[in-house]
């Protein structure tokens, strides 16, 4: 078994991912600093703030010192790298608490939402894709081909608004915002699970509906190719049940699907941002959005680092899984 894992491949890919991660760190540091409107603006408010903030130059320079904004750029960068290695992303300029604290409160919610959505959309995508290719050119296939991509073509925030109006307001089935009922007294663990789950339903459905078409189309295409292979004919000739033939087909096409799912993660972060904004779900997406508006560099940097670390890790894992499933993948 272990001879199927190719350690050279694991290591070289690992190095590539490490380099990618370093590049992300670098971009994270420099990009916001080249944008107009410095970080101090968010501390002081601005003239388009709710109230004009009056501040004199002396206070301003003391503030600049306080946040190390007077240091030359390269020094700021070195400090940033050293601190990042210690998981220290500084103090949020806006929230005024350590960045790690801000993120640790939000990350679990995003992982819950993204994780369940990834699972649901993948399972649904594979099931439907397989069925679709099995019934290629028949009415079911045609129907699915029309309906499913529709979910993808509707902007996700619009889909969310429809869900809110229909299931939240009109039917009153599910709560429309937040991740739990604030200040509800949970009598036991199961009532808390129910509360969290009922809040999860709409954003989850929305995100899954948005992400599922990609997997569906891929599975449909890959499986359709497999259908023409001799082994399928062989299977059918042997009189295997449909179920078994389908399993064969699926096993032989799972490689690209795993890759696709891993690659989807990166895009999913974007979709999650919209879903979280629409449903006020207290996750990373909402955090990043607000941090961007406020030019809260430390939070932006921290959030991007955590999210890209997450995405890279998943991709890395998928890479290894793929090389395990398909021995050729590692031999390039």
């Amino acid at each position, binding site marked *: 078994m272990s001879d199927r894992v190719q350690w050279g491949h694991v290591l070289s890919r690992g190095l590539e991912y490490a380099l990618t991660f370093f590049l992300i760190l670098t971009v994270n540091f420099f990009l916001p600093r080249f944008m107009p409107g410095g970080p101090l603006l968010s501390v002081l408010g601005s003239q388009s703030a709710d109230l004009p903030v009056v501040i004199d130059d002396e206070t301003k320079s*003391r503030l600049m010192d306080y946040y190390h904004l007077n240091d030359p750029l390269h020094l700021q960068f070195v400090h940033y790298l050293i601190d990042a290695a210690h998981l220290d992303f500084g103090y949020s300029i806006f929230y005024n608490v350590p960045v790690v604290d801000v993120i640790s409160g939000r990350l679990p919610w995003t992982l819950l939402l993204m994780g369940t959505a990834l699972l649901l959309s993948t399972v649904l995508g594979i099931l439907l894709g397989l069925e679709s290719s099995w019934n290629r050119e028949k009415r079911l296939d045609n129907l699915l081909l029309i309906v499913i991509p529709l979910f993808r073509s509707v902007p996700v925030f619009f889909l969310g608004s429809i869900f809110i109006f229909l299931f939240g307001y009109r039917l009153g089935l599910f709560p429309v915002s937040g991740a739990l009922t*604030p200040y509800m007294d949970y009598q036991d663990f199961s009532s808390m699970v129910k509360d969290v789950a009922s809040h999860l339903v709409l954003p989850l459905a929305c995100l899954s509906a948005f992400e599922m078409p990609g997997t569906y189309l891929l599975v449909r295409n890959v499986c359709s190719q497999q259908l023409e292979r001799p082994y399928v004919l062989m299977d059918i000739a042997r009189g295997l049940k*449909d179920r078994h033939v389908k399993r064969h087909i699926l096993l032989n096409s799972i490689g690209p699907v795993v890759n696709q799912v891993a690659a989807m993660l990166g895009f999913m972060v974007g979709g999650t941002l919209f879903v979280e904004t629409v449903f*006020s779900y207290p996750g990373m997406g909402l955090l990043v959005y607000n941090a961007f508006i406020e030019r809260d560099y430390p939070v932006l940097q921290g959030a991007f680092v955590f999210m890209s670390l997450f995405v890279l890790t998943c991709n890395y894992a998928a890479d290894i899984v793929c090389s395990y499933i398909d021995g050729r993948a590692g031999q390039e």
Partner: protein
Amino acid sequence: MKVEKVFSVLLSFFIISSVFGPLFLSSAAATAENTVEESNRVFKATWGASGGDWGFPSPLTFYPRGPGYVMTSFCFDSLVWPDETGNFTGLLASSWENSPDGLTWTFYLRENVTWHDGEPFTADDVIFTYDYIQGKAAISPIGAGWYNTAVIESVEAPDKYTVRIKLNRPYAPFMQQVAAVIPIMPEHIWKDVSDPTKYMDDKAAIGTGPFILEDYNKDQQSYKYSANENYFLGKPVIDTLIFVKSTDPVISLKVGDADEASLTLDQVQALKDSENMKVIQGPGYWVYRLRFNIPANSILENTEIRKAIYHSLDCEEIQNKVLHGGGVAGSAGYVPPYSGWYNSDVTQYAYDPEAAGKILDEAGYDEVGSDGIRLTPDGEKLEFQLLYTSDQQNQRIAELVQSYLKNVGIGVVLKPGDTKTVDGLVNAGNFDLAIYSHGTSTDPERMLNSFPVSTGWNNTEFASLANQQMSTLDEGERKELVDRMQVLIAENVPTIPLLYRNVYSACNQDKFDGFFYTPGGVGGGVPTEYNKLVFIYGEWKGQSTASEKNNTASTNSPSMNAPGILTAVMAFAVVLMLYRQKR
């Protein structure tokens, strides 16, 4: 065969979700019902869709922008506070007087006031607070932006319940900008705190205010306060005050997730059918204005050109198209007409494109290119860049300004950006025109004195008037100076106030009544319905929380819809089966 299987999985998923979905809700309602006591008067409010986290509600840790100060004011009291008439009522001070020279304010404090932790409140706490904010906290954005301690010379206490505040110059808005703003902090808690901006211990929220902070949740963006039974103005009429974040305040109000919400005019109109909702409106003291790059743009530096631009804009129509009547058209003197400081005798610039064209002709821009845009004497197009933040209102205003100016032969190139980008470009002087929207505060000092800075317009008479009115204690004399300032603004057009936005909110009247907008605002000029006195003087109308829950459950019963959905799903399944059999 297999298709059915997949569909049956899908169907069961739908059926399960439609059956269990309501269960989630009804069980949630049931648990809530069982746990609340009969007497618990819970009031849920929501503030703004953009965010529900306004920072830790302590004097030096709330977020400087947004309603953070108001969240803090529930726990902390200042010496005085504006009531529903806009006059000051005593909070920690029961009476006060000012010396004839205007330099010494004496406050006589309430006795028998205790902090939330039971410690007695004395004059020492007041002295400590003023010193602390003037010293340590001045570095923080809040200390610098919200608490005006620059005018304070010294604070002393002749006895345990008297405080004497000496000023370094007479300061007319002292009550509104200082005494009614600075929250008094307990010395016994704060004396050892070295970095106040990071002090977010539970104890940091201990004040003397009508509410005690139970919880602040940064991640869920919610606040929970409980009533201070021993509050010196009387017990609040509610027991628990909760602020939650809402995606859509209108839906939250309708389904009962919130009892009160701040709204826009459009949202108010969506509530028309709800009879139990009481809508109130107030002056927003929020201006949308056209900003010029006066010192750097040689064309716009000419006052006549700015006047021509003013004549070419129909502010009333802009207001109607952008706010649909939820505001007031801009006035040339900048002070909005609903303000007590408004001068009605200033030059106004009526919508008059012909007059605008004439001024432009006389200024030498009489040649018109083939595209209808005027040419400068150098043969260049008379064209400006217009910066604006790309939200809905600003976008609309920018487009309207563009078409109005086009009408008189001035070209406008739209340049949208996010708030910080626009701020950055304007601060760097890298713009021609910009749409700015911001709060104006209510006192003339804050409203007008920063004018030269915020417009790039230098006028010596204005500057000296600004200085003078600040230290003129006689209200009548001060009004005359402020009137003159408005005349100068109207004559020189350093900026064009396009419109002022009103503020709206709605409250479930079956539960609570008594919200009002404080004339002059709270906290030095914030127009909000959350004046904490509302919860002292207001009226609780709800029954008990338990029956309230029953009401919301029956009006919004999920179980009503479950059979309908089930039927639909079943019908779909039957159709599918038939279809399959046919094949």
